């Protein structure tokens, strides 16, 4: 659907500029702006593609909805206590601050009615605010609901007042609710107060966060500015109300949309220009030059020019050029530019038609990054470097914020009026779970650092591997010498690992994607175990066409390597080692294991993302372990047409996995622990109500009376504002690997915990949030936490710990490959191999 079609579909009446556009093709690329409040995972990338990780952030405040999903009360074993006890205690500083309220604090909500009825909200507000009864009280009123921190004498209060014109108006205030400080309404109310305070601190609100454009971090070579700021939230944690703030950066492009378009025009030429514009721009958020508002680009109207006239509210007609001159003293320089179309969401009256706004590209700046920019490794690296803050730096920013807040008289007053006291930074106790041993074929190692055990396993044999005898290398003539050198290196490394690599058939081709594909089509037969392609450039279509053909049309494991990667001086050995490990996995080998005390346990990872070409399609990745050692995996990927990021194919996938398990173990697993990754804000309820039953029904149908597997579902969330630090003297550092937090910073209504299993030398680690929403297994919290930690060691693409459990990381990698490159369901023949590494 073109952008315009979508505009219509939403039921707007296009106004003045609404001539039908002959042809506005192109898919809508919805690329939500990026908030860099987390550490980038630049470290973990495959040798294949070099795509960087991209995360989007939802805009609506939906966490409240999730907080209403009280899952813990149904889990009897954690009803009273959900904390573990194993590990070494560690004192942690957080980025939480206490918000103290008087013991008996309540918020009183009144409903106001006017007689005679007043249409003007402003007049209603003015009359009530000026009434003597409310004069010195803390109050907030939106025209209907009045909030007071002190109760009025009566439940129903009648007030009389007079308008300027002498009319007498009767106002009736009826007490509707007395709200405790932990009620959702109250918490939302506090958020409003804090938003007000942040504005007083000279910060600008963009989306949900607050930024200081006066102190930008600049990346001129990429035309970017980063505005530092904070993401904040006020909410009720385990036992009290807390304020949470984390440093966040807003990405802003230092060019107008017009400059961006002109640039694009230079790059694409005229033929595909409008299409490319549509593709790159629609969905992005722009900031206008003459006010502080942001708009989402919903469409580009090429038929309207700045010299065209539009009708103003008063009925008069004015051209855009004249309007901006008169209103803002801005002279438009390019009279041929099109206009951007944005639909305004109406908040108050949802049923009303959306308003359509025309924006002039010359006066709009792009915020966030285009999809093109996020796939630019250099750019993303520069951004990550500029925004990376050490724990110390982060702590300093927080201290500065608190200081600003306490020094600002207006801010202080605002808090005081409502009886709020902004308190101290919260410290809490965490535990560090013991480190894990890595089991190899004939050697067990206790790695020096869990973050990277590649050195520890040098010259060790992997658990198992298939000898590679029949395989192809496709490369272009230019890369022949390089390829030969690499091949001998690969064979040497392979034999050390116990992975026997035979001599391949080598096919030399021209330097075009089509030539590569043709060669593969010609030479791949059912006997071929693996195809390796030495790619001359990281142009996406090389990689995509190869992966598409070899994953879906003709299922054979494939390995792509960039010439550039092989060219790196002195890196050949480590590159070859990494690739040898990937190839082992792609052929169904196992690299290493950790000790899993639970026997007959299946772990499952589920991840969902959107197809890059067709946003209506959700890509569901499902990866399940099929042996007790958790070293062999069954991977499926299903494309489903749906608007929500909720999977509806889980029953099929689960049944497939259980059958596979049964085949290799001759029994069903006693326990299943599933990790669900990629749950958006506000979707927790849907996961509980739609996904859990799918899994359960598969488990019940496959099971017998004698044995039915018990299921647990854990929601894994990477994106959270929370940070933990350890304090040593005056310095703060990242907490050690394996730090578990299951009190104070968690939520009373959930069985949840945080786990830190990232090692950052320069940045700040972000803890991962685990929320056990369904739990038949009734494992002790200690065991659940340790199992989760163990699973983070089993991602074969990286000889070290990863931030989420391996099944999640596998499922994510699989969906990413399918969503970005394949756009089809990969063949089931590959399901037993980790073909997507």
């Amino acid at each position, binding site marked *: 659907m073109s952008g315009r079609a979508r505009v219509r579909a939403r039921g707007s009446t296009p106004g003045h500029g609404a001539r039908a556009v002959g042809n506005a093709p192109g898919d809508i690329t919805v690329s939500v702006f990026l908030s860099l409040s987390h550490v980038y995972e630049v470290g973990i990338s495959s040798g294949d593609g070099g795509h960087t990780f991209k995360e989007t952030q939802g805009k609506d405040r939906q966490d409240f909805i999730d907080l209403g999903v009280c899952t813990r009360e149904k889990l009897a074993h954690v009803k009273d206590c959900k904390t573990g006890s194993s590990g070494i205690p560690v004192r942690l500083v957080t980025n939480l601050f206490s918000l103290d309220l008087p013991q008996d604090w309540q918020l009183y909500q009144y409903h106001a009615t006017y007689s005679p009825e007043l249409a003007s909200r402003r007049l209603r*507000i003015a009359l009530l605010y000026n009434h003597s009864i409310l004069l010195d009280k803390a109050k907030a009123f939106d025209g209907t609901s009045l909030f007071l921190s002190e109760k009025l004498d009566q439940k129903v209060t009648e007030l009389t007042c007079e308008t300027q014109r002498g009319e007498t108006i009767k106002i009736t205030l009826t007490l509707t609710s007395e709200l405790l400080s932990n009620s959702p309404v109250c918490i939302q109310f506090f958020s409003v107060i804090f938003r007000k305070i942040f504005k007083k601190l000279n910060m600008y609100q963009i989306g949900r966060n607050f930024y200081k454009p006066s102190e930008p971090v600049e990346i001129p070579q990429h035309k970017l500015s980063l505005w530092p700021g904070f993401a904040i939230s006020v909410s009720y944690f385990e036992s009290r109300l807390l304020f949470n703030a984390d440093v966040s950066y807003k990405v802003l492009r230092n060019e107008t949309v017009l400059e961006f378009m002109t640039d694009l025009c230079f790059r694409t030429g005229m033929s595909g220009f409008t299409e490319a514009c549509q593709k790159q721009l629609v969905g992005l958020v722009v900031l206008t*030059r003459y006010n502080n508002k942001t708009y989402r680009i919903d469409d580009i109207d090429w038929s309207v020019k700045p010299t065209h006239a539009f009708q103003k509210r008063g009925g008069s007609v004015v051209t855009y050029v004249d309007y901006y001159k008169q209103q803002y*003293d801005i002279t438009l320089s390019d009279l041929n530019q099109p206009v951007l179309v944005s639909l305004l969401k109406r908040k108050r009256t949802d049923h009303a038609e959306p308003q359509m706004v025309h924006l002039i590209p010359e006066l709009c700046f792009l915020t966030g990054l285009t999809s093109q920019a996020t796939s630019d490794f250099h750019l993303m690296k520069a951004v990550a470097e500029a925004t990376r803050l050490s724990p110390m730096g982060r702590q300093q920013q927080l201290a500065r914020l608190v200081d600003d807040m306490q020094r600002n008289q207006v801010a202080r007053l605002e808090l005081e009026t409502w009886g709020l006291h902004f308190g101290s930074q919260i410290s809490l106790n965490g535990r560090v779970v013991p480190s894990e041993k890595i089991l190899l074929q004939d050697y067990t190692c206790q790695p020096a650092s869990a973050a990277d055990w590649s050195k520890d396993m040098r010259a060790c044999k992997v658990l198992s591997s298939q000898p590679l005898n029949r395989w192809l290398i496709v490369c272009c003539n230019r890369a022949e010498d390089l390829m030969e050198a690499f091949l001998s290196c690969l064979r040497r490394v392979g034999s050390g690992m116990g992975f026997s690599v035979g001599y391949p058939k080598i096919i030399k081709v021209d330097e075009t994607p089509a030539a590569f594909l043709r060669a593969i089509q010609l030479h791949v037969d059912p006997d071929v175990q693996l195809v390796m392609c030495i790619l001359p450039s990281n142009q996406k279509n090389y990689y995509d066409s190869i992966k598409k053909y070899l994953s879906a049309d003709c299922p054979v494991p494939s390995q792509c390597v960039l010439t550039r990667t092989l060219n790196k001086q002195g890196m050949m050995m480590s590159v070859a080692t990494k690739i040898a490990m990937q190839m082992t996995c792609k052929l169904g080998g196992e690299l290493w294991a950790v000790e899993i005390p639970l026997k007959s346990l299946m772990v499952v990872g589920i991840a969902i993302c959107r197809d890059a070409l067709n946003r209506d399609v959700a890509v569901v990745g499902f990866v399940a372990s099929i042996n007790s050692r958790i070293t062999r995996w069954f991977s499926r990927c299903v494309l489903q047409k749906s608007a929500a990021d909720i999977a509806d194919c889980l029953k099929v996938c689960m049944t497939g996995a259980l059958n596979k398990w049964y085949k290799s173990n001759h029994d069903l697993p006693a326990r299943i622990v599933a990790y669900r990754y990629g749950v958006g804000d506000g979707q927790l309820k849907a996961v509980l109500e739609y996904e859990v039953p799918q899994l359960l029904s598969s488990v019940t149908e496959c099971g017998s009376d004698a044995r039915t597997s018990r299921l647990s579902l854990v929601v894994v969330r990477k994106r959270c504002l929370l940070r933990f630090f350890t304090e040593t003297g005056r310095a703060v550092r990242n907490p050690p690997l394996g730090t578990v937090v299951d009190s104070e910073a968690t939520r009373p209504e959930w069985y949840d915990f945080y786990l830190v299993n990232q090692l950052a030398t320069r940045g700040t680690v972000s803890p991962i949030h685990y929320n056990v929403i369904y739990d038949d297994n009734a494992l002790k919290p200690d065991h659940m936490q340790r199992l989760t930690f163990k699973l983070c060691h089993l991602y074969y693409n990286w000889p070290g710990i990863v931030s989420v459990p391996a099944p999640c990381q596998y499922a994510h990698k699989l969906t990413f490959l399918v969503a970005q490159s394949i756009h089809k369901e990969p063949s089931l023949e590959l399901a037993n191999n980790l073909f997507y590494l």
Partner: protein
Amino acid sequence: MAGLRTPSEDPEGAERRRDAQGQRAARCGRPARCGEQRVEQRGCAGVRGGASSSTGLGGALSQRFAFPGGNASYCWCNSVAGGNFEDVTPEKVIRFNPPLYKQRYQFVRDLVDRHEPKKVADLGCGDTKLLKLLKIYPCIQLLVGVDINEEKLHSNGHYLSPYLGEFVKPRDRDLTVTLYHGSVVERDSRLLGFDLITCIELIEHLDSDDLARFPEVVFGYLSPAMIVISTPNAEFNPLFPTVTLRDADHKFEWSRMEFQTWASQVADRYNYHVEFTGVGTPPAGSEHVGYCTQIGVFRKNSGKLAEPSVSQQPDQHVYKAVYTTSYPSLQQEKVLKFVLVGELLIQVDRLRLRHQRMLREQEKEQDPKAGGMDFSPAPHLLLGAVFTEAEKARIENSPKPFCEGEKFCIPLQRLLAYPKLHRLCADEERMRCLIADSVCLSSDGSAVVVDLHNSWDYRPEDN
């Protein structure tokens, strides 16, 4: 959820109600600048589209804009807003279109446009709406508001902070905006030497003592190049339904004769000359009553010659600065550097892409079978800068970009020829200094050097 807002009334109400608003008028300020409503962005959750209140949308929004910028017009219409007058059949109320307060502001804006003052002060600035309108003018470098109502200054101050966009495309010249709490009959040396001082609907709020001291402070002491004073015209009042003062806090409302007599005496005493005009034209048939708001524009006779006396005045700080903000501008080295590097890189990239395309086309000519792509621009889409003949000539006469292997070099002289860059920095040596740590220069420093090909160059055949 309640937007925490200050009291306010129906924005589009009749002038009558508007002027009747300032109930708690203080000595010298106008507490509510009658009716111009602060458009407050509601503090509620996630408004991305931003526009949540009923006015003040930033984009050119179809059918939603009030004032057509035209001159005063009015209409007789049935009274509506807010309800019904008892036992009166639909009454005739005067409404101005655009609303009168907007016409007054437009009057000031026109003056600023014409005279391009550098330093402007608004006495009795109230909710700072006029200042907000004036801050967009590039000529103004110092903008000051004074009011007796400190609370109002506190709560409205941050509306005067720079727009986010002004950090990306900064102004040419510095601008500082300051709000002072104080009375207009007190002398504060920080208001000396201004080019324009406006007193919009101010004097009628002054009691007789203050009114007597007002000329001596504003004309005698502050003595700016130009003063604008507006006040209600009492002769217009009979056209309103009830004949009283327009606002409870008004101490007086003058006829044209009264105002002009006072103004002429003041002008004479302090060596100004005054011209009278107004906004809010009366309805047909009532032309004799004159404008609804009468305005006197005072200009100093001696022009700018009187300025040296300013420095001789001792510093006298009686006002309390409530809010102050400085705008980023090209006069600040850091900002200039940022903008220059940004513009330069845009230009460099354009030249690089143009060169690439040229190479591609050359290749195609040599190899006819590879052709097929059409690069001729469609005539209806002409984006980007269009140069004048003189600019074109300057660009063509400057040294051309060239290639050294995979490196693409653009001489600084060439870059300086482009108007957008020339505007920022006209001197090669200065340009070199400003960009040196942000871009790669050739060994002799005469050219910017970049890679001819980027891995992320968008190619049409990619899709």
